[in-house]
């Protein structure tokens, strides 16, 4: 739904009439005015940002720079990221919003590419299902991990399921690929508890809002959130905050400000709290931003502010942005092409029905398209192709592993039937119902007995899932080293931590930074659904007819003669048209049509041309009537006459895939009519505007075969058709 802006309700994307003028006054080493408010008027966010979020020394320097000068530096390839990040430390929220608003969409994207924290973009998966079936959760998590997702998030329909769901995706993910980080988004206290027990490794539930009343309605303050962030870190759990355009307007407390300005306040508070990163860019309220003018641009702008503030960015694209696939994908490109730390903050790897987050902007059914868009643009947006049999194998192994863990821990059993259906089923409707009452009791036991990641590892080890057990120990080592608490950390191959410290984005212009090339590009371009060109022209049916050469073709003399001029590969190298018609059937239909029209067909092969016009024209020159039908092996046909220029014609049939046997018969009839000087109405042809897109590769390959068969300078051959009908 599109809506007119209502700035007083916060229903405006950016540059709202109620947004404050940027200002910053410092006295005696303290901020005494921030964005139009004096210290006495500061609300809880102003206080927090003024106290922890502004570097006063840099602020003094930033004050000397005009907005447009800063904006220019954002897109100046010669100004490196560290310099821009340093500058951001002295800017107020209103200034941040004001400066990024000066950039157009492509400039925003370029600046985001430059300012992303980690060198290599990654992606996060959502794994849930409506039945909270552990085998299906584990299977989906295993597949997501095998597809290269760096993080996997689950949540619950029923909160008491949280421990079991956390265990299911922990087990599944480590079976799929060791080192994938997991989380279970539930209420804060329970969330922390799961982390403490080593059942999750990260959390992004720390929501922040851009106005004080929203914060208070969310039952938090910047201080309580910051304390929680430190608490997670103290237990070795990675944390990122969450914010997004439109949340304040939706909660009725936008205070007349634009979405982008309020998001800038959120982000300033998030950095002030010492978070390494943020999930932002509309997130669950994205549809609200997209309802107003400039919404897509404002969301990209808020991703950019987050990156500029040196935060890891998980850039939304998880909740459904629009019913329109075109608008949704147009919006996605803002993050997809520049690359963000996590291009989505939750790609639904299962069908949308099973997405319990209330979203699934992109889901299992879109995976092939996502992979193809990566291949189209040569862009790495964090998802890898895997073959169908690999997917089945890893899904089954994930489900079997969770079956073993449930058995070892004395949880309600996971049946073999559940394994089979989780491995091969489409969604949770394919699976039997579990005893949910018993499951939640098991969930309670996890918390009461403190069942931990180590217990899960021991259960896996005992059931010969040694690799997965070892992987869970690897996650414990991460908690001990705390390396993954640095900005934008993910776990790469062999447990290397890739973060903004070890692998900073070093883009400095063309040829630098992360580029999709080498083995990774080879991997991302080899899609299971791409076709092997060799197969496109192979497998054509064996001919049931053959053409016998009768020597060089000479000009004919009968006025009722119509030549059927064949391309060099017709019924030799190739046996079927692009539409799948057997060449002999086509030839028989043409000949029948010519006879129907009262003429005699004569078959000639043109050997020195592959182009249909020249094939047809050569045929016409040989024809006693001066009229010929030229036909290429792929089925493209022309009715030609000797007195016309080669590239002219009587009728041309370019849409070969749409020509049926009846069409060829009609073409033969019309050719006969022209030969006898009768009137003929052109053969009706169907139009399919998708045929070209669908068959263009096959067209190329078939034409290449035709061209290969060309013998330059070879005279045309007289042929006779011998049918081998049974």
């Amino acid at each position, binding site marked *: 739904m599109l809506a007119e802006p209502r700035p007083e309700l916060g229903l405006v994307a950016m540059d709202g009439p109620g947004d404050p003028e940027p200002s910053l006054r410092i006295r005696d080493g303290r901020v005494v005015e921030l964005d139009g408010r004096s210290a006495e008027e500061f609300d809880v966010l102003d206080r927090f940002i003024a106290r922890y979020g502004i570097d006063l020394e840099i602020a003094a320097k930033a004050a000397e720079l005009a907005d447009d000068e800063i904006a220019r530096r954002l897109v100046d390839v010669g100004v490196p990221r560290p310099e821009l990040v340093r500058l951001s430390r002295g800017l107020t929220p209103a200034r941040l919003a004001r400066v990024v608003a000066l950039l157009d969409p492509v400039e925003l994207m370029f600046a985001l590419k430059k300012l992303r924290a980690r060198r290599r973009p990654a992606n996060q998966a959502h794994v849930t299902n409506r039945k909270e079936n552990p085998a299906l959760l584990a299977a989906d998590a295993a597949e997501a991990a095998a597809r290269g997702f760096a993080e996997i998030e689950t949540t619950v329909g029923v909160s008491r399921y949280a421990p079991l769901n956390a265990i299911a995706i922990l087990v599944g993910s480590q079976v799929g690929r060791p080192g994938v980080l997991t989380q279970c988004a539930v209420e804060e206290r329970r969330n922390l508890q799961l982390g403490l027990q080593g059942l999750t490794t990260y959390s992004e539930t720390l929501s922040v809002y851009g106005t004080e009343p929203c914060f208070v309605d969310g039952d938090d303050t910047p201080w309580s959130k910051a304390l929680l962030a430190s608490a997670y870190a103290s237990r070795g759990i990675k944390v990122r905050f969450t914010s997004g355009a439109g949340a304040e307007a939706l909660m009725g407390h936008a205070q007349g400000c634009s979405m982008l300005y309020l998001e800038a306040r959120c982000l300033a508070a998030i950095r002030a709290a010492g*978070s390494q990163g943020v999930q932002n860019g509309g997130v669950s309220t994205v549809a609200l931003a997209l309802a107003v003018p400039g919404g897509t641009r404002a969301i990209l702008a808020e991703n950019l502010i987050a990156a500029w503030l040196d935060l890891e960015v998980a850039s939304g694209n998880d909740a459904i942005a629009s019913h329109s696939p075109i608008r949704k994908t147009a919006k996605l490109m803002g993050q997809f092409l520049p690359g963000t730390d996590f291009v989505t903050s939750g790609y639904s790897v299962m069908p949308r029905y099973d997405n319990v987050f209330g979203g699934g902007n992109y889901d299992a059914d879109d995976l092939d398209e996502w992979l193809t868009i990566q291949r189209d643009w040569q862009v790495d947006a964090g998802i890898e192709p895997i073959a169908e049999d690999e997917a089945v194998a890893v899904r089954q192994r994930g489900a079997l592993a969770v079956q073993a863990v449930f058995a070892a821990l004395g949880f309600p059993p996971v049946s073999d039937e559940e394994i089979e259906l989780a491995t091969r089923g489409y969604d949770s409707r394919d699976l039997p119902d579990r005893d949910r009452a018993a499951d939640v009791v098991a969930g309670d036991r996890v918390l009461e007995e403190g069942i931990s990641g180590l217990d899960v*590892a021991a259960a896996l080890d005992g059931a010969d899932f040694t690799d997965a057990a070892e992987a869970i120990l690897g996650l414990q080592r991460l908690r001990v080293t705390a390396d993954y608490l640095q900005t934008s950390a993910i776990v790469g191959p062999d447990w290397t931590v890739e973060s903004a410290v070890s692998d900073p984005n070093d883009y400095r212009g063309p040829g630098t930074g992360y580029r999709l090339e080498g083995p990774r590009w080879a991997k991302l371009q080899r899609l299971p659904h791409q076709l092997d060109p060799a197969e496109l022209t192979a497998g054509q049916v064996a001919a049931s007819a053959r053409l016998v050469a009768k020597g060089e073709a000479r000009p004919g003399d009968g006025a009722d003669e119509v030549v059927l001029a064949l391309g060099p590969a017709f019924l030799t190298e190739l046996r079927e048209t692009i539409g799948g018609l057997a060449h002999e059937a086509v030839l028989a239909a043409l000949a029948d049509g010519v006879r129907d029209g009262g003429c005699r067909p004569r078959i000639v092969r043109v050997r020195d041309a592959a182009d249909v016009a020249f094939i047809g024209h050569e045929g016409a020159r040989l024809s006693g009537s001066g009229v010929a039908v030229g036909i290429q092996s792929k089925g493209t046909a022309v009715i030609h006459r000797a007195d016309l220029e080669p590239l002219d014609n009587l009728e041309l049939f370019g849409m070969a895939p749409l020509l049926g046997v009846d069409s060829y018969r009609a073409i033969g009839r019309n050719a006969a009519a022209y030969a006898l000087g009768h009137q003929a109405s052109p053969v009706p042809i169907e139009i399919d505007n998708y045929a070209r897109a669908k068959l263009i590769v096959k067209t190329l390959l078939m034409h290449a075969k035709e061209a290969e068969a060309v013998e330059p300078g070879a005279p045309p051959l007289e042929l006779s058709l011998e049918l081998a009908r049974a």
Partner: protein
Amino acid sequence: MVADFDPRSDYPLGTRRPDLACTPSGLSLDELTLDALRAGRLSNDAMRATPETLLRQAAVAHAAGRTQLAENLARAAELTAVPDDVILGLYTALRPRRTTAAELERWAERLEREYGAHSVAAFVREAADAYAERSLLAPGATAEAGRR
């Protein structure tokens, strides 16, 4: 505490300085093995960073120009000594309108006295000041706030 450590080159600890990372119970990284798990030598309580490790990570963040992340990690280092239920209690106390100024001050004193968590204590006191100004203390307790 963070001597013999170069925050610019010793990260990641796990690969560059595994000698410096150990569990609170003193197990080194290469002692965290399946064999140790089978022998019952590992416990979940030990699967976390020491305060020294977190301070080293704070130094890494600081060296990378991430002042606030460094402060967060320094607070985290202090909170390693604070039990889970105490942390959750402190979190609840910091939520809006839960606590009086005097109660927040008692939290700050306790953090200092029992856990040596000085920067967390300072953080709580700054919160108390802000809450007093913004009516975010427990109802009826705002008048008391100024006394601190």
